């Protein structure tokens, strides 16, 4: 769990509920020997600034580009993206997911919403919780993994999974279970 800022404890609770062991990552050495990394929701600017300030940016990018699997939600998706629109000046992502996202693309908090999401491989719809969510404008070479109505809200590329919504707030453990089972 990248634990710089945001809702990492909710991911921790969800993963522990399905029997996974978890560790909080705030320093480069804490990346050693991980099977996967969760990049939680929060403010992408705050996370990016803290990663750069504390020397985590390059180690995390390197680990992910060398194949460390990741589950990224909301701000986490922005951090992985190739192109970010409406970010702060000069805000950049790792560029490891070939997608273009618009920050807060669904609007400010009064437009935050819940809506059912169809996820590849799940029989039933998943309860999507979208909070100042990023809007996926282009999925490039990434695979669409989840849709709300017809709009992509989840993508996969290699061993990276990124979601616009928050499974950790939904009380539904299916996506966490699926992520862990695939490791």
């Amino acid at each position, binding site marked *: 769990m990248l634990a710089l800022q945001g809702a990492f404890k909710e991911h921790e609770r969800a993963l522990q509920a399905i029997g996974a062991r978890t560790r909080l990552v705030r320093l480069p050495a804490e990346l050693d020997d991980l099977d996967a990394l969760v990049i939680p929701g929060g403010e992408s600017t705050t996370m990016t600034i803290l990663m750069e300030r504390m020397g985590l940016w390059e180690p995390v990018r390197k680990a992910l580009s060398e194949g460390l699997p990741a589950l990224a939600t909301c701000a986490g998706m922005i951090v992985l993206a190739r192109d970010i629109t409406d970010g702060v000046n000069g805000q950049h992502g790792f560029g490891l997911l070939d997608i273009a996202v618009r920050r807060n693309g669904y609007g400010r908090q*009064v437009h935050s919403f819940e809506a059912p999401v169809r996820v590849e491989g799940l029989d039933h719809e998943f309860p999507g919780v979208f909070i100042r969510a990023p809007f996926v404008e282009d999925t490039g070479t990434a695979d669409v993994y989840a849709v709300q109505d017809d709009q992509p809200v989840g993508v996969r590329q290699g061993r990276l999974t990124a979601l616009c919504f928050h499974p950790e707030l939904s009380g539904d453990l299916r996506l966490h279970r699926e992520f862990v089972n695939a490791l």
Partner: protein
Amino acid sequence: MTEPNGNGVLKGSFKVKAGLAEMLKGGVIMDVVTPEQAKIAEDAGACAVMALERVPADIRRDGGVARMSDPALIKGIKAAVTIPVMAKCRIGHFVEARILEALEIDYIDESEVLTPADEENHIDKHPFKVPFVCGCRDLGEALRRIAEGAAMIRTKGEAGTGNVVEAVRHMRAVNNGIRRLHGLSHAELVHEAKQIGAPVDLLAECQRLGRLPVVNFSAGGISTPADAALMMQLGCDGNFVGSGIFKSEDPLKMAKAIVTATTYHDQPEVLAEISAGLGQPMRGLEIPQIPKEELLAARGW
């Protein structure tokens, strides 16, 4: 901006209101009075800003009635940053709150720092699409605000003093209130609810969770990285910093250090490094020197 289409789209639910507070956790929300200050806060790593005309230290100094900020100022600050923007309305002033909602503020602070508009009733926050954060001094007060629809809580502390002692008192009071619930039978829980003036169902939820059912930040008097880390170690989910940043000698440096301290609150080596050479923090006030009628935390009930 794109509107979501399709079946089952639900806006403004309690889940998305409380959910934004979850996303702010581990972060610092900074009081700002100009777009320039808002930019500094964002560049320092703030997870949100509070748009105000005056920081609490100046409200305290100036006296008079303190009201909601000018919408023109709020719009200017909203345009300057990409992070969430909050604003304050007076306790009980539901029209100020509707104006802030129309401005598409991301969170409303129904705040004791402004002059209360109603001495009996807080705002009924359930009908709003915009979420509210409210102050508390103990568990009973926190649960009364949640019953009215608050989706996030903060301790009151004593705003504008640069003195952390009241924030500590209030955080410990909330923690003690929750600890006392351990092992109580339902009958005893009903009695406790009566004693502290809290709804039984919310008290039962606190007992089951072992914490408040919504996110709880600390606020009121936090003015150094060490203060921010202290509050995190006492169990808060994040920090509001008001006068402490822009009343200090070097606001950008102080803001960066407080953000880092909030994340690395349990790592003394990191705290030692970032606390060095920050210049003067805000001057600060001893609480007993403040006349009782000027204490802000006593507003609201």
